[in-house]
């Protein structure tokens, strides 16, 4: 599983400047454990995964990376299925910071299913997203607030 962290500064077609970090947490015994792995350069092989993990959720696509000045790293995280995951995509801009929460389930055959996402089009308030994620994961809301901090 790939985690993308990057900076982007663009003026075309929109003016934007942002820092994005992605973290993955695995549900283990009622706790959320941060998964880590080796980091490497972004390659052409990562394009579709980038768009799936970042473009679909935060609205920043590979095309945006090409449009601006960007610096991107890929962290390879190994997930042993079956597993329930909480992915947190943090988008930091000058005026605002946005947090996207994604709850997924990795099935025994490796297939990953999305159970919840506070998609940007829905304008869900963060406390509502935390409440929903905690319900699906079966953990206290405080556990999620802790990892968000």
């Amino acid at each position, binding site marked *: 599983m790939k985690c993308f962290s990057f900076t982007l500064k663009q003026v075309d*077609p929109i003016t934007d400047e942002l820092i994005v970090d992605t973290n993955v947490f695995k549900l283990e015994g009622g706790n959320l454990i941060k998964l880590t792995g080796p980091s490497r350069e972004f390659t052409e092989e990562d394009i579709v995964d980038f768009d799936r993990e970042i473009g679909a959720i935060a609205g920043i696509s590979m095309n945006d990376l090409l*449009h601006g000045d960007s610096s991107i790293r890929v962290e390879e995280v190994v997930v042993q299925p079956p597993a329930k995951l909480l992915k947190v995509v943090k988008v930091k801009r000058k005026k605002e910071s946005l947090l996207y929460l994604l709850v997924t389930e990795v099935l025994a055959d490796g297939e990953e299913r999305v159970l919840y996402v506070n998609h940007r089009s829905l304008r869900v308030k963060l406390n509502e997203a935390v409440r929903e994620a905690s319900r699906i994961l079966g953990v206290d809301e405080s556990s999620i607030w802790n990892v968000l901090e």
Partner: protein
Amino acid sequence: MSHLREVTREELRVNYLELRDASLEKIREVAEKLAPQLMPKPGVDYKVYLSVKPPLREGEELITYTQSVCPECYSLLRAVIFKREGKVWIRKVCPEHGEIEELYFGDASAYERFRRYQAEGRGNAVTHVPLQAPCPFNCGVCPRHKSHAALINIVATNRCDLSCYYCFFYATKAGYVYEPSLEHIRYMLRQARLSEPVKPPALQITGGEPTLRDDLLDIIRIAKEEGFTHVQLNTNGIRLAFDPELAVKVRKAGVNVVYMSFDGVSPYTNPKNHWEVPYALDNLRKAGLGVVLVPTVIKSYNLSDVGRIVRFGLKHNDIVRGVNFQPVSITGKMPRKEREKERVTIPDVIAEIERQTDGQIKREDWYPVPSVAPLSRFVEALTGKPQLTFTTHFACGAATYVWQEDGEIIPITRFVHVDELLSFLQEKAEELEKGRNKYMVLLEVAVKLRKFVDLKKAPKRLRERGKALRLLLDIFVRHNYESLGEFHYNTLFLGMMHFQDLYNHDVARVSRCDIHYIMPDGRQVPFCSFNVLEELYRERAQRAFSYTVKDWEKLTGTSLIAQHYKRNIRKLISGEPYRRHYEGIIDIDSIPYEDHVLASKRFGIPVVDE
């Protein structure tokens, strides 16, 4: 394109004779099974060559990098957008087919002005296909798409009563008949309305020529039943010209406006329907059904006519609601020298309109489509409900409104301070989003709106009793959108919509597209994927759900060729409506009959005397 495997096409074709009477559930089952197989295949339909960076040369200034496709093999390429000699260009290099350079936007300063209005969409929470391929080979809509659809197109048939020389789409040339059943259409429309949180409100029924379908009224009815509040009919106007009842019937069935091809005011610039348009307008007038004229603009062909097209629209403003210019999208492969004769972009057309209207409609009067996004944001912040927002790429389209009074053309910018109004609404939207009391904001809007309107310069009709201001108050404060209808009456909307082609293709534009097609396999595809990568989307999907010509002719007991229109020019030009509509626009009597005939025949439409 030769790279497509014929065998794939044949394998993925259903027997439509069996599906035509099927239930919606059966159609859904077949569509869902076929859709994944019809998706573009890496290595077969396209390759990815993003590491090849196109060069910049002396005298060129970088604007940005993007992605595009090779016109020969559809491979995904890195492209550079740059300035040179006051214009904007796009260049890409395919390792297999070499360098391709094309004009992207004919005026670099207009590009920079339009870019300032870009607004970013927030995508769709519910999409139709999983994300498995790079853009634009994953259309359907995919989860990465940035805008929600504002207008859905549905192809009702690929049959056409015209046989224009350049068209390869219509059934006779395509070699199959695509004509989804009513239940199939209902399935497609339901697919289009799956989107969340903003469902597309508008539908365009298109073709081929949709008026050839005997069950057109049922299609309109189904569109309304499935929740489309605005239905427009895209037509060449031939049938509307000869069947006065048709306009009445489609209006009663629920069509809100007709989109009618209209490439120029003379037989030379509009051999498609020059002679029939006056009769179609009269019938639409009698039916009370408004029409938007749609000229496709080609540099060497009808760019010289754009001012007269505007004047024609104003002359018939009682029924013509707008003119939507479409700078040419080049179909098929064409050498660069040939393309240069045809290529025209939005700022080129705008500049010509300014020149041909003696500066009455200036280039500053035009605004790019996403400039209106603050209006949606304001309403969204006020109501808390997601609103339809036009977040297409700024290079895709532009618009303005004009009125005519005592022979003078008055654009909206003469009496509405558009930039200031948009900034004000943006500011108020931000305040609402931060939690400011909405009644306080509304009060402030009501008080301050007048400062954005200069009533003294407004057209007389909008000046009376401060009507212009009242309309703005109705829209922004009272949310009474019926006022919009009043605003549009005797107002001429002028639009530009530049659909892409394989030469100027830009993924940044595709990913922001808000005009989509719903396909028979249930996928919803942006306009410029459907029509630009047509072999991967339009052709493949429609062929899969089509009749063979032989089957269709046997089924209907008629032949495709027999339906082709034959024009009686002598009769058309001698009618009173013809003279009345073109009087004051062109010198009708100076065109010899032989020229009329030649123009029609060259275009591919036969002429008869009786």
